[in-house]
């Protein structure tokens, strides 16, 4: 399909979390692996915001890091605009790298404290050799203006700015190589709500203005609902449901999605009665067999404990749940 910008297929990443060799020999332990991302596949269309939500251990950050080349996948393939991303090949990747960028969670860590703001923003321009000389200074000024700061701020150091302003600087930097695709890893979770609104609005405006495509990583369902067109829900490294954003909230298919929705505090004080949420995310080193969610699932069936469910099409997208395979997707509601 031509309007797919990023396509992820069978993306898997194991981490070796074994004890050191000597300890393993003495304690007779086996090697241990943590599967942070297990056979994850999804497509992101041009101009849309695709969100990945999940709790700790869901693998959402691991997936983001693999997409931008900060981590190497153990298996699977990432295609950007139809081309396979091969981060090992420096020269071939150079042209591709310019076209995507990343915004990080913590604006206090994502800007080098020893660099002036101007140099931070100009780094991608210089690395990709996009401009030279005084042109760079003008471009940095323009970018600062775009994100709602002033050109004079280029001469300052990051510590002179508040958290929200720093995130604006990080966004200006991400924009400086004129990318088409930006991975936003929890871009507002370190910010206060009033500042979060500013940053979310800014991200929307920039998307409209520059036709950007976003991959939004977040644990906050309200933010995700506000920002995205489509949402993927992750649980213990597996994609349990992908759905159109608005429909995910009105018509969740997977029991885990439903549980997550029920856990969101109700600001409207509507007094909606919620199914109490139970249990916690299990240790990802030894995930439960079959469907990883089965120990917490209110609708658990015998096969859930043995067979890992595959993603199947639903009314709103896809979901991986045995309940849906029975042709009775409504059974879970009540």
């Amino acid at each position, binding site marked *: 399909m031509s309007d797919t910008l990023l396509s992820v297929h069978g993306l898997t990443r194991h981490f070796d979390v074994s004890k050191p060799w000597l300890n393993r020999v003495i304690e007779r332990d086996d090697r241990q692996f943590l599967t942070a991302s297990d056979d994850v596949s999804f497509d992101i269309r041009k101009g849309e915001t695709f969100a990945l939500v999940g709790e700790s251990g869901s693998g959402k950050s691991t997936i983001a*890091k693999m997409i*931008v*080349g*900060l981590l190497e996948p153990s298996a699977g393939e990432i295609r950007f605009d139809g081309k396979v991303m091969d981060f090992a090949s*420096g020269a071939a*990747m*150079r042209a591709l*790298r*310019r076209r*995507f*960028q*990343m915004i*990080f*969670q*913590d604006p206090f*860590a*994502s*800007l*080098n*404290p*020893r660099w*002036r*703001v*101007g*140099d*931070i923003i*100009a*780094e*991608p321009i*210089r*690395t*990709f050799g996009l401009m030279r*000389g*005084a042109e*760079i*200074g003008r471009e*940095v000024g323009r970018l600062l203006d775009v994100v709602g700061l002033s050109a*004079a701020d*280029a*001469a*300052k150091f990051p510590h002179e700015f508040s958290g929200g302003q720093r995130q604006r600087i*990080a966004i200006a*930097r991400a924009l400086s*190589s004129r990318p088409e695709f930006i991975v936003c890893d929890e871009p507002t979770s370190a910010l206060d709500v009033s500042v979060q609104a500013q940053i979310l609005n800014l991200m929307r405006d920039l998307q409209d203005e520059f036709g950007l495509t976003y991959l939004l990583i977040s644990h906050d369902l309200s933010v995700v609902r506000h920002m995205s067109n489509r949402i993927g829900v992750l649980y213990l490294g597996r994609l349990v449901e992908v759905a159109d954003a608005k429909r995910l909230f009105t018509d969740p298919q997977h029991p885990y999605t439903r549980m997550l929705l029920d856990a969101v505090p109700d600001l409207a004080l509507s007094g909606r009665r919620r199914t109490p949420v139970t249990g916690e995310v299990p240790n990802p080193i030894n995930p439960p067999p079959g469907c990883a969610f089965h120990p917490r699932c209110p609708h658990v069936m015998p096969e859930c404990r043995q067979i890992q469910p595959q993603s199947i099409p639903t009314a709103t997208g896809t979901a991986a749940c045995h309940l849906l395979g029975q042709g009775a997707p409504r059974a879970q509601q009540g």
Partner: protein
Amino acid sequence: MTDFTPENRPNVFFRAWDSDIAYSFRRSPLAIIAALVSLIIIFAAIFAPWLAPYDPFNPASLNLMDGFTPPMEPNAFTGNVYWLGTDDQGRDVFSTILYGARISLFVGFMAVLFAMVLGITLGLIAGYRGGWVDSVLMRVADVQLTFPSILLALLIFGVARGFIPPAYREAMAIWVLIVAIGLSDWVQYARVVRGATMVEKNKEYVQAARVIGAHPTKILVRHILPNVMGPVLVIATIGLALAIIAEATLSFLGVGVPPTQPSLGTLIRIGQGFLFSGEWWILLFPALTLLALALSVNLLGDWLRDALNPRLR
């Protein structure tokens, strides 16, 4: 390249005076005294040829009759008065101290520089690359730490002398000394830089640079290095005191700089021969200078560590 340094920034002296570190300095009398003592000695050493009343290494200006003049007393034969007295050959002790401090400080600074460059480079590589590179480098460092560094310096010194033709030994001695002290001291820098690098490399600003495909060398030099220099500065200051003492120890043992270019350690070695015959000043004044220099530099290092890392206090 566009420079983002502002044009109308307050002048450099105001900014330095206003910084937190300067504030902490102003409030620490010990640091001020230590800095003053170090600066006086360093200044005197640098300008020794102009400050010293005599040139102790010019045989033409020496008068053996002036030998063993006690401090502040006229010589029995010539009537000359020397502030700190003279040694057996009639050399002015004050002048030899100035020249000696010059050699000691030169060796100290160069040895620290050598250890620093070596340690930082290896520490950055070990910390950033990790894996077997890290393991090999750090095991070498561990092994080296099991030897007392002065023993190691002696060893390096001995081996180096074996390779250098006798004709050059005298001239090369000081450089061999610098390398010997520097080589025995790089481990500290490597360890601290490695630790700090492992922390910094996981920070998001380094990841941001990796996302755009910046070259690892550039990431190490431009991003990580400036952020790990704080602790390095502390070790370098304390390391300077240690290097000066190490040089003095080696020279005292007679393996350091040649007697024609005596350092403070050489002067102490020469002086101790006269201690029991009553000419105490030949030993005492160089020893006091060494003590004052090493102590004040060390105190400065301690203060710097506290000032840069308030949590350690």
